[in-house]
């Protein structure tokens, strides 16, 4: 064997330093081996300081199988069967784009620009080749389009941080966790969903330093298994009750930092009066919370005392529990606790708020070149700037989690438009928004649909035209960490686009030609564009001086003198750095919310049940709360087909043995999980790692309805609801279901 190798002609290996553009939670340097124009292997960061290497997770270790997967789309496709049948035939780009252009012109003429709908998602997190910005620009120049408001992931946390801080930058550098004396991880599993490439390793270092870590979660997550000195299982959706009871204990024991509250916050007195029961004769005692959360009162009391006395302490909430009908209240209550204990703006503390981003190298900063102009369809509407009134956001748009309801019902359903043409880019929304069966129904009814994607996703199955998109390995682009840094990354093109795949910006250019939009400014070539974009945003302009070096290294690391801490300036020098809210302070009570006069949206954070929680009367019929956490082996539904990932992370439902036994379900059984919205099948995994009364199915498995309408792919959104909280959180985790042994269908 060795002899054979020696006689073979040496093919030089080119190492391309690049990264991914996935919506994944990290952003990791990759060294892609390219031989003879093909990727042969993947390595990760080789930074000389090993402890600070930003090592890629299993997803990007499988990037090669993703790029070359036999099911990657390589040619434009035209529907060749009923919608949803998955039957397509290959056509040329010219045919595809001519047809799309004709359809666009026809819809514009017959129904007006508001009937053109653009559905954009987070599937491509890089600056230049971003199809969302490209299509926004194209459709704007075509006379305008309708679209959606909000995102699926973080809207609860965004609403909470906008309410209380008026800033999404609530995170600290991850190494600052090592300055903490107590870390409370509340509904947060960075071992799986990453939350910044360096996060889990810093948490491990914190544990090894002797810092106590408490995990509060309905599941004993992989993070809890490695980090937690104490795991506190809690009934999903009841977090705010426990937080209120912790506040009760802290106030009762006079452990709250009144000086901090007086100086930096408004409305604590109102929150206090709620917590102590002055306003409703119901003090939010640990015993009260025990009856709701199932967490023993003593555990709540002890944790509250510990949190109140230990300085500094980091209460780390996340976005998961906020994807519910009570979403923003969870983040608002967490922020309130961090304010009560004076842990904001100090090393080792946490401002909470769930978004965890720092304003250096943050993914929020990206702008297309040329940037899209104002959408004519939304011209003349009342400004939404600074407002917490969702109704303003919905003047011309639908909520993201109501997208398919809007497509289905249009103006008759109270939406601002009737969709006749939809263009999907960077998303697999049928799979990833609530109520997949309804979404499928909407797409069947939709007149005309185009999708640009790498895969024939469950959403793409309903398209009239599918346009194949090049992967990140096939283009150069600017990328940013998601959302912790501080560093910038660059994707360097490793290989030529597969088949006839194109970048979304080139698709937009060619479509502009077909539409006869003569003044559609063409995109510059990659290097020129990336250089320009680095100069365009302030942080990169300041940091990245040498483009060639950045390109060669694939990463630019930023060194701070000390870890970044959110709101440090605002706390150290509030006179000159007020919080951005109308009061200039952290708003525990929000006048902007009070003015909305919506009892469902309280002006202070309160425990509320809303719907499809443990105590909803519907739980008599559907007694299990469905959790849909992030999977570890794919990015939402992206990479689902990659076999290397599937085999290390089989798609299974976490079920407590108590719930399984009462239904005669054994480990490994195929079960039917169902409610009024749909049915899916999945393998049962019996584990003590989930609280009884809940079932957990990782999101992102592909929807695959059989002839009886049973989703055999186990897509969790077959069961979830297409609804949102008063703050705009996609309420996918407020979902009740029942399960039973699967009898084979029919």
């Amino acid at each position, binding site marked *: 064997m060795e002899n054979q190798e020696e006689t073979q002609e040496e093919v030089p290996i080119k190492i391309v330093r690049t990264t991914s553009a996935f919506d994944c939670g990290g952003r990791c340097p990759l060294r892609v081996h390219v031989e003879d124009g093909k990727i042969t292997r993947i390595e990760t960061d080789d930074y000389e300081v090993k402890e600070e290497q930003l090592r*890629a997770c299993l997803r990007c*270790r499988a990037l090669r199988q993703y790029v070359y997967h036999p099911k990657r789309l390589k040619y434009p496709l035209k529907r060749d069967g009923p919608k949803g049948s998955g039957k397509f035939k290959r056509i040329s780009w010219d045919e595809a784009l001519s047809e799309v252009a004709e359809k666009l012109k026809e819809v514009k003429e017959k129904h007006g620009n508001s009937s053109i709908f653009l559905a954009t998602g987070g599937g491509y997190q890089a600056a230049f080749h971003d199809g969302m910005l490209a299509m926004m620009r194209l459709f704007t120049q075509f006379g305008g389009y309708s679209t959606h408001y909000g995102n699926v992931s973080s809207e609860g946390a965004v609403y909470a941080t906008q309410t209380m801080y008026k800033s999404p930058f609530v995170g600290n550098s991850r190494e600052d966790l090592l300055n903490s004396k107590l870390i409370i991880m509340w509904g947060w599993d960075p071992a799986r969903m990453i939350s910044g490439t360096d996060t889990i390793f810093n948490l491990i270092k914190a544990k090894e330093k002797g810092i106590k870590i408490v995990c509060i979660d309905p599941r*004993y997550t*992989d993070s809890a298994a490695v980090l937690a000195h104490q795991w506190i299982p809690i009934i999903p959706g009841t977090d705010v009750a426990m937080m209120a009871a912790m506040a009760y204990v802290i106030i009762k024991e006079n452990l709250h930092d009144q000086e901090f509250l007086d100086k930096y916050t408004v409305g604590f007195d109102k929150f206090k009066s709620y917590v102590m029961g002055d306003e409703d004769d119901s003090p939010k005692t640990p015993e009260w919370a025990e009856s709701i959360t199932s967490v023993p009162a003593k555990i709540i009391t002890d944790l509250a005392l510990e949190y109140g006395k230990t300085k500094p302490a980091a209460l780390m909430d996340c976005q998961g529990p906020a994807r519910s009908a009570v979403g923003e209240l969870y983040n608002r209550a967490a922020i309130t606790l961090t304010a009560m204990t004076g842990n904001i703006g100090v090393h080792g503390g946490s401002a909470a708020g769930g978004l965890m981003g720092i304003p250096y190298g943050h993914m929020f900063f990206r702008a297309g070149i040329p940037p899209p102009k104002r959408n004519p369809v939304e011209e003349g509407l009342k400004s939404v700037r600074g407002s917490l009134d969702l109704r303003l956001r919905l003047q011309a748009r639908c909520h993201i989690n109501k997208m398919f309801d809007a497509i289905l019902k249009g103006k008759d359903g109270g939406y601002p438009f009737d969709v006749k043409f939809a263009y999907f880019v960077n998303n697999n929304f049928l799979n990833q928004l609530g109520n997949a069966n309804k979404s499928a129904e909407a797409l069947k009814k939709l007149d005309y649909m185009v999708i640009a994607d790498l895969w024939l996703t469950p959403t793409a199955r309903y398209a009239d035209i599918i346009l194949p998109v090049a992967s990140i390995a096939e283009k150069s682009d600017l990328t940013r960490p998601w959302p912790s840094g501080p560093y910038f990354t660059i994707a360097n093109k490793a290989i030529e686009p597969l088949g006839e795949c194109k970048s979304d910006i080139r698709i937009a250019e060619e479509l502009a030609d077909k539409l006869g939009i003569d003044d559609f400014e063409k995109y510059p070539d990659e290097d020129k564009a990336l250089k320009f974009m680095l100069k365009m945003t302030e942080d990169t302009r300041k940091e990245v001086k040498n483009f060639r070096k950045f390109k060669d290294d694939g990463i630019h690391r930023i060194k701070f003198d000390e870890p970044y801490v959110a709101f440090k300036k605002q706390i150290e020098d509030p006179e000159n750095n007020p919080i951005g809210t109308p009061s200039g302070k952290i708003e525990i009570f929000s006048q902007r919310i009070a003015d909305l006069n919506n009892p469902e949206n309280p002006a202070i954070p309160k425990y509320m049940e809303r719907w499809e929680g443990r105590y909803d009367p519907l739980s008599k019929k559907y007694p299990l709360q469905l959790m849909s956490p992030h999977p570890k082996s794919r990015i939402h539904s992206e990479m689902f087909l990659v*076999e290397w990932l599937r085999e290390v992370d089989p798609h299974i439902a976490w079920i407590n043995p108590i719930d399984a036994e009462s239904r005669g379900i054994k480990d490994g059984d195929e079960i039917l999980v169902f409610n009024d919205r749909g049915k899916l099948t999945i393998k049962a995994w019996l*584990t003590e790692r989930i609280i009884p009364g809940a079932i957990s199915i990782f999101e992102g498995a592909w929807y695959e309805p059989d002839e009886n309408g049973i989703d055999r792919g186990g897509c969790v959104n077959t069961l979830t609801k297409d609804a949102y909280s008063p703050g705009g959180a996609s309420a996918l985790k407020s979902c009740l279901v029942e399960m039973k042994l699967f009898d084979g269908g029919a």
Partner: protein
Amino acid sequence: MEVPKLQVGFYFDQTRCIGCSACAVACKDWHDIPAGPEKWMTILYNEKGKIPDLFVSYLIRPCYHCEDPVCIPVCPVEAITKREEDGIVLVDSEKCIGKDECKSKCLKACPYDAPQFGPEKGAKMKKCSYCLDRHLEGKLPICVESCRTHALDVGNLEELKGKYGDIKEADNFVYSERTKPAIIFKPKKKI
């Protein structure tokens, strides 16, 4: 068999492993192994206790390149060898007569299921080579470099013992006195 001049081995910090399987996927990529039963690196899972007092552990399962590899003497065609210079246990897959012909004698002998076979009939044995290609270039095995929590280390076993101590036990692991697997641990215990 001669005693190797040097014995390489693994150090596994079980308290750090999050069970993510990045090492297993990186291994498949580096050695170009298709998805399927042939796995040079596996992560074993163990769960004990009742809610809320739980214990969960993960364990790496490559080939432990035993000091006394029992796979070697059972192989009818002497396809398995132990390198004198570093103790790496290698299989010559060309020599191997396939899993059906000898009824997978090596796999039956190995207490750790290190010998691996593809799904095809008559599949030849393959297994973790300690990334010999990388080792010869002075690089670490791909699993070590891929570990996001730095739970893995490799090197001269004696040096590893000096650095990390000589702990042969870990949760979900039984040390075989017969084969002497070349791995030491920081075992996971209940905290």
